[in-house]
C-alpha cells in the first residue's frame, strides 16, 4: 500500500529503452499483488489452472520479466521478510477489508453486476506462502536473481540502489523514496495499456521516473523531513493525522521543521507518541537490510520453466514458447561487461 504522497512529486515519463543495460530491483510483493489484482477475467475470476489453483502471479511474473529482458533491462526481485511489528495493525486491517470485499464480490456476482464484481474481486487478492514459493521457483528457472530481505522488500531494494548496485527501484509505492532510494520507477510495464479502476476503459500508461534529490530540491525539504511528512499523512506503520494530505503536510513541515513541532502547533488527538514517531523514522531511515546477495543472470533453464508452467500449472506450451524465447536475450545481454 505505502504512503499516499505521489501528488507532490515531479514524475518524468520514460520508456523501456531508457533503462537498457540497467539493473532494476523490483519490490516483489508489490508487483505480485498487482498481478493478482489485475490479471483477471471480466467477472473478476483470477487466472486458474485446471485444478482451480490461481496462476495470475505466475503469468504476470513470466510476461513482465520477459518484456524487460527483451529490452535488455536487468531485473532483480526483492521479497519481503518478516514484517515490522508496527505493520501488523495495517496488515490486520487489510485482511478485514479483503474479507469484506470478498463478501461484496459474491453479492455482486449473484446480482449480475460484473463491473462491480471485478472491482471487488481485485481487492480480494491474497498472496499466499505457496504463491511466493512458486514465484521464486519460476525466477530460479528463468535465471533471474532474487533476494530474501530481512524485513521490507522495498527497503532492501532501496539499499541496493543507494549502494550503486542497481539503477532504480521498481515499485508502485513511494515508500522507497522515504527509505532514500535515489530513483523510483513506477508503472514498470511496457504494455502501455492499463484498465482504469472501476471503469470499462483503458488508458495509456508509461513508466514514470521519480528522482529523490531533484524532488527534495523542488519541494525545498530535507530527506528526513520527507519521512516526517509521511508520518503526518499516514504510513504502513501509523494512521496519520485526520485531514492531513500530502500538500498540507508539506506546508506544515516546511513551516515547523519536523513532526513534533507540527503536533505541538496543531494539537492533534490521533497523533502517534514521540516514541512511535522515532520508531517509524528508524524504519525508513535505518531499515533492516542485507549485503548477502549475488547479482548474476545465468540464463534460462527451459525444461524447468516448461515443468513449472506447463506440467504443473497447465499453461499452453505453444503460448509459453514464444515468450520464453525472449529470455535467450540474457546471454546477449550478459556479454556486455561493466567497468567495475
Amino acid at each position: 500500500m505505502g504512503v499516499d504522497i505521489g501528488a507532490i512529486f515531479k514524475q518524468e515519463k520514460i520508456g523501456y529503452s531508457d533503462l537498457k543495460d540497467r539493473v532494476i530491483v523490483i519490490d516483489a510483493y508489490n508487483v505480485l499483488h498487482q498481478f493478482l489484482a489485475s490479471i483477471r477475467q471480466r467477472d473478476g475470476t483470477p487466472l486458474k489452472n485446471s485444478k482451480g489453483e490461481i496462476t495470475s502471479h505466475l503469468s504476470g511474473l513470466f510476461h513482465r520479466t520477459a518484456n524487460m529482458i527483451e529490452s535488455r533491462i536487468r531485473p532483480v526481485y526483492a521479497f519481503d521478510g518478516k514484517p515490522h511489528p508496527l505493520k501488523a495493525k495495517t496488515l490486520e486491517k487489510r485482511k478485514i477489508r479483503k474479507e469484506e470485499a470478498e463478501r461484496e464480490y459474491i453479492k455482486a456476482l449473484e446480482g449480475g453486476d460484473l463491473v462491480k464484481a471485478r472491482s471487488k474481486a481485485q481487492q480480494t487478492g491474497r498472496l499466499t506462502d505457496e504463491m511466493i514459493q512458486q514465484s521464486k521457483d519460476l525466477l530460479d528457472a528463468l535465471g533471474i536473481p532474487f533476494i530474501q530481505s530481512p524485513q521490507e522488500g522495498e527497503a532492501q531494494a532501496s539499499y541496493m540502489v543507494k549502494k550503486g548496485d542497481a539503477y532504480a527501484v521498481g515499485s508502485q509505492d513511494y515508500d522507497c523514496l522515504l527509505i532514500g532510494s535515489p530513483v523510483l520507477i513506477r508503472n514498470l510495464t511496457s504494455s502501455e495499456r492499463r484498465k482504469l479502476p472501476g471503469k470499462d476503459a483503458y488508458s495509456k500508461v508509461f513508466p514514470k521516473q521519480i528522482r529523490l534529490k531533484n524532488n527534495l530540491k523542488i519541494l525545498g525539504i530535507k530527506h528526513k523531513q520527507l519521512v516526517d511528512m509521511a508520518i503526518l499523512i499516514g504510513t504502513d506503520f501509523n494512521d496519520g493525522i485526520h485531514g492531513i494530505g500530502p500538500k498540507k503536510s508539506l506546508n506544515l513541515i516546511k513551516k515547523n521543521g519536523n513532526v513534533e513541532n507540527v503536533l505541538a502547533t496543531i494539537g492533534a488527538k490521533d497523533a502517534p507518541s514521540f516514541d512511535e514517531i522515532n520508531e517509524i523514522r528508524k524504519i525508513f531511515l535505518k531499515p533492516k537490510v542485507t549485503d548477502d546477495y549475488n547479482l548474476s543472470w545465468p540464463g534460462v533453464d527451459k525444461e524447468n520453466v516448461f515443468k513449472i508452467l506447463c506440467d504443473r500449472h497447465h499453461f499452453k506450451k505453444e503460448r509459453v514458447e514464444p515468450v520464453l524465447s525472449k529470455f535467450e536475450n540474457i546471454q546477449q545481454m550478459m556479454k556486455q561487461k561493466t567497468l567495475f
Partner: protein
Amino acid sequence: MFNAKVKSEVLKGIIDVTSPLVSEVKFNINPKGITLRAVDPAHVAMVDLVVKNSAFDEFKATEMELGVDMDKFASIMRLSSAGDMVSLEYDEDTNRLIVKIGNLVRKMGLIDTAGMPDPKMPNLNLPAKVVLKASELNQGVRASEAVSDHLALTVDKDDFELFAEGDTDTVNLKLPKNLLIELTTNSKCKSLFSIDYFSNMIKPVRGEDPVTIMIGNDNPIRVEFNIAEDKGHVTYLLAPRIESE
C-alpha cells in the same frame, strides 16, 4: 567563485563528449581549469575530461563544484551560434549558473553535488596502442552501425582492423601501419565493443584530428583525443563485450 567567458563551440564540445553518457554531472572547477569524471548508469563507460583555463577567453575561479543537468545545459547552448561569446557566472546566493549569450540572460538552477560519485579510474593493462585520423575510424564505425550492434577491434604488429558482422552482412576496415599515425604492440590484441557506446565516443572528434585508442584482450578500450583547440583532453573507457563462451 567562478566567472568565465568562452566561445560557444568550446562549451558545445564539452556537452558533446559528456551528455551521451550521463545526464547529470559534477564539474570540478579550480584556478587551472575544469575537470570532470563520470560513469554512465550501467557502469559500462567512463568519461574523464580536462579543460585548461587557456581554453577560455577569460577564466577566474576558486576551487568549487558545479552540478549540472546536461540536457538543460545543452538546450541553453543551442540558443547560441558558432562564434558567439558566452559568459558564465556562478551565483552563490541562489546556487545558479548565470549564462549570458549576447543580450540573453539565462539563469540555470544547479544540482546538489553532495552524494554525486567520484569514480576512480580503474587500473588497466592495455598493451596495444593505435593513433589514427578520426575520419578513418568514423567511416568504419558508421558502416558497422548498419550491420550489427557490436564490432571487433584488433591490433596486430602490422595493422589495425575493425570488423563487424550481422546475420547477412559484414564490415571490414583494415589499416596497415603506414596509414596510421602510430601503432605499438608486442602481440595481437582483440576486444569487442558495443557500437552504440563506441560511436558516441568518437563522434565528437572529426576530420584529420588524431584519436588514440588502447586495447587489450577482452579488456576495456581507452579512447583519447583533444578538444577546444588542444586545450581540452578527453579520455573514455568502455567495457568490452565478451564473445559467447
